[in-house]
C-alpha cells in the first residue's frame, strides 16, 4: 500500500544554515511514526515544510490520500495542505485564546463547511443543519479528548495539558487522514502522558488516522510507535522499529545516551 506521506530528499536552508539535509521519510496508513532527535535537530522545521508554512529548498513532499490520489504539496499554502487532509498541532500551543473550547474545535471544521456569507446571514434550514452538525461533531471530538467538562470555557483558561489535548481535537476537526503532533506531551505530568498515549493509540485505531509524532518523552515514543526516525543536525541518522532504534549505536551516542546517563 502507498505511504500516506512521503518525503524525498527534502532540504531546507535558512540563509547559510541547512536545517534539513536530504531527509527522506514515509508514513504508512494507520501507523504511528515518531520523529525524535535532540533540540534543534530540525524536527519542527520538517513539520513546517510538510504543512506549507515553509517552502522546502529542494526535494518532494508527497501526500497520498487513502483513496489513491497523490499530490506534491511543496509550496502549497498551509490551508490547502489542511484541505488535502493533513492537520497538525504546534509545539508552542497556538489555540485561539479568547474563543471557547468548542469554538476552537468548530474553527477546525471550517474547511469542511459550506456556509456562505449570505447563507450565514439568512440562516436557512441548510445552514442551520450544518451548524448543528458542526457543533455535534466538535462535541464528539471533545469527548474523544476528554474535555466535555469545559465546552463553553474560554480556551486560555484551561490547564496546560488540557490545552494540548484541545489542539489535538481541533486538528481532528479538519477531518484529516494524517495528523502531525509536535511534542504533544511537553509539560504534561506522567498521569496525563499516560492518558495521552492511550488517546493517540485510539486516534489510530478507532478513527483510523495515520500519525506523525515529534516527542522527547522516550517512554511514550517507545511505547506506541510503529516506526521511529531519528534526526540530528538536520539529517536522519537512524530509522526502524523502537527496538532497532534503541539498540542503534549512533542513536545511543547522539541522543539516548545522554538520556540514559541522566
Amino acid at each position: 500500500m502507498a505511504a500516506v506521506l512521503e518525503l524525498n530528499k527534502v532540504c531546507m536552508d535558512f540563509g547559510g544554515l541547512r536545517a534539513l539535509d536530504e531527509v527522506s521519510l514515509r508514513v504508512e496508513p494507520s501507523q504511528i511514526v515518531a520523529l525524535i532527535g535532540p533540540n534543534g535537530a530540525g524536527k519542527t522545521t520538517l513539520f513546517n515544510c510538510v504543512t506549507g508554512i515553509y517552502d522546502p529548498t529542494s526535494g518532494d513532499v508527497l501526500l497520498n490520500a487513502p483513496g489513491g490520489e497523490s499530490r506534491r504539496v511543496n509550496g502549497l499554502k498551509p490551508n490547502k495542505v489542511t484541505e488535502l487532509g493533513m492537520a497538525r498541532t504546534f509545539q508552542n500551543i497556538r489555540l485561539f485564546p479568547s474563543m471557547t473550547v468548542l469554538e476552537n474545535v468548530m474553527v477546525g471544521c471550517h474547511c469542511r463547511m459550506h456556509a456562505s456569507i449570505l447563507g450565514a446571514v439568512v440562516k436557512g434550514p441548510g445552514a442551520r443543519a450544518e451548524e448543528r452538525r458542526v457543533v455535534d461533531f466538535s462535541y464528539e471530538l471533545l469527548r474523544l479528548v476528554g474535555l466535555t467538562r469545559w465546552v463553553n470555557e474560554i480556551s486560555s483558561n484551561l490547564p496546560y495539558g488540557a490545552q494540548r489535548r484541545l489542539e489535538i481535537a481541533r486538528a481532528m476537526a479538519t477531518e484529516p487522514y494524517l495528523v502531525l503532533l509536535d511534542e504533544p506531551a511537553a509539560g504534561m505530568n506522567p498521569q496525563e502522558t499516560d492518558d495521552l498515549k492511550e488517546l493517540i493509540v485510539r486516534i489510530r485505531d478507532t478513527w483510523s488516522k495515520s500519525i506523525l509524532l515529534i516527542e522527547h518523552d522516550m517512554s511514550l515514543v517507545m511505547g506506541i510507535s510503529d516506526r521511529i526516525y531519528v534526526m540530528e543536525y538536520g539529517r536522519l541518522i537512524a530509522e526502524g522499529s523502537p527496538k532497532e532504534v534503541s539498540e542503534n549505536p549512533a542513536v545511543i551516542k547522539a541522543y539516548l545516551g545522554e538520556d540514559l546517563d541522566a
Partner: protein
Amino acid sequence: MLGIKRSLLVSIWFMFLTFPLLVIRVNTVENTVDWRFMNMLYVGVGSFFLSFVWRYLMERRARGGGRSGGQGAGSVMQRVLGEKRIFYPIAAVVALAALSFPLFSDAYQTNVMISTLLYVMLGLGLNIVVGLAGLLDLGYVAFYAVGAYAYALLNQHFGLGFWTVLPLGGLLGAVCGVLLGFPVLRLRGDYLAIVTLGFGEIIRLVLENWGDFTHGPSGIANIPRPGLFGMDLSIHDAAIYIYYIVFGMVLVTIFVVNRLKNSRIGRAWLALKEDEIACQAMGIDKAKTKLTAFALGSTWAGFAGVIFAAKTTFINPACFTFLESALILSIVVLGGMGSITGVIVGALVIVVLPESLRDFPQFRMLLFGAILVLMMIFRPQGFISTERKKYEYHGAADETPAEGE
C-alpha cells in the same frame, strides 16, 4: 510622603509650563502686562490634585485592587447583559425609546440622534474589520466618502434616487474595500494601519483635487433628501423620515453582524485575529477571509455615506478627514472590540458627550481626550467586552458527558 512630594513637583512643573500662556497677558490696548497669578494658583492646585489622584489610582491598579474592582463592575454589567431575561427587555425598551424619540424631540435633537445612529452603523461596520478580523483600518472614512459621493454624483448626473443609490453605495463601498484589501493582504498591525491611513487620505485628496468630477473642495450642494412617495416633506419631517431610515438600517446592521459573528465566517475572522498561523493551519484561506472582512466592513460605510449625503444635503471633502476615521475607531475601541452592544454604547458616548460638553467649548476636546486616555488605562477592553456564544449539545444524550480525566 513620597506621593505628596512627587505631586508637588508635578504641580510646580505645570505652573512653570503654563506660566507664559495662562499668567502673562499682554494688554495691547493699554500696552501693559497683566499678571494673572490666580490662574497660576488654579493650575498648581489642580495639577497637584489630579496628579495625586492619578498616582493613587495607578498604585491601586498596580496592586491589583483597582483592576479587580474595575472588572467587578464590568462583569456585573456583563452578567446583566449576558442574562437573556434581563437583556431582551432592556433591548426592547431601548428600541422603543429610540423609535418614539423623534416624536418628543426638536429638530436639533433629532439631528444629533441621526448622527449617533450613523455612527452606530459606521462603528458596527468597522467593528467587523477591527473588532472581529483584527485588521487595524485607519482609513475607514474613505468608504464613507465613497458612499456619500456615489449618491451625490449619481443623483446629479443621472438623477438616480436615494433608494436606488443606497444598495449601489454599499456595493461601491465593498468594491473599494476589496481594492484596498488586495495590496495590503500581507500587511499586519502597524504597517496595515499606515497603509489604510494613506488610502483614506488618497481618497480625500482625489475628491479635493479632481475638480471636474467631484467639484473639488467646494463640494456638492442641493443633494435631495429621500422622497416618501413623492410627498413634499418639511425639513423637520424629512429629518424624522431619515431618522427612521437610519434606525431601520441600524437594526439591519445589528441583525447581520450578529448572524455573521457566530457563523463559519465570523469564527474564521476571530481565528485570523487571534493567531494567523494556527488559523491557516485550520484550513482557512487567509486572503479570502481578510478580503471578505474588508468588503463587508466597507459595505456598511457605503450605506452610511449615502444616508449621510441625503441627511446633510451638502458634502465636501472636509467631511471625510482622518479625524472622522479616528472617531469611528474610538467608538469601536471604547465600546469594546467585537461587541455589538459595546459599539452602540460607544457611539452614544462619542457623539453625545462632546455634544453635551458644548457649554465648555474650550475644554471639550480636552475632556474628551482625557476620558479616552483614562478608559484605555483602566478599562482597555472597552465598556463591554465580548461575550462568546455558549453552545448546547443537540446529539443523542446517550451518556452523561464524559468528564475529563
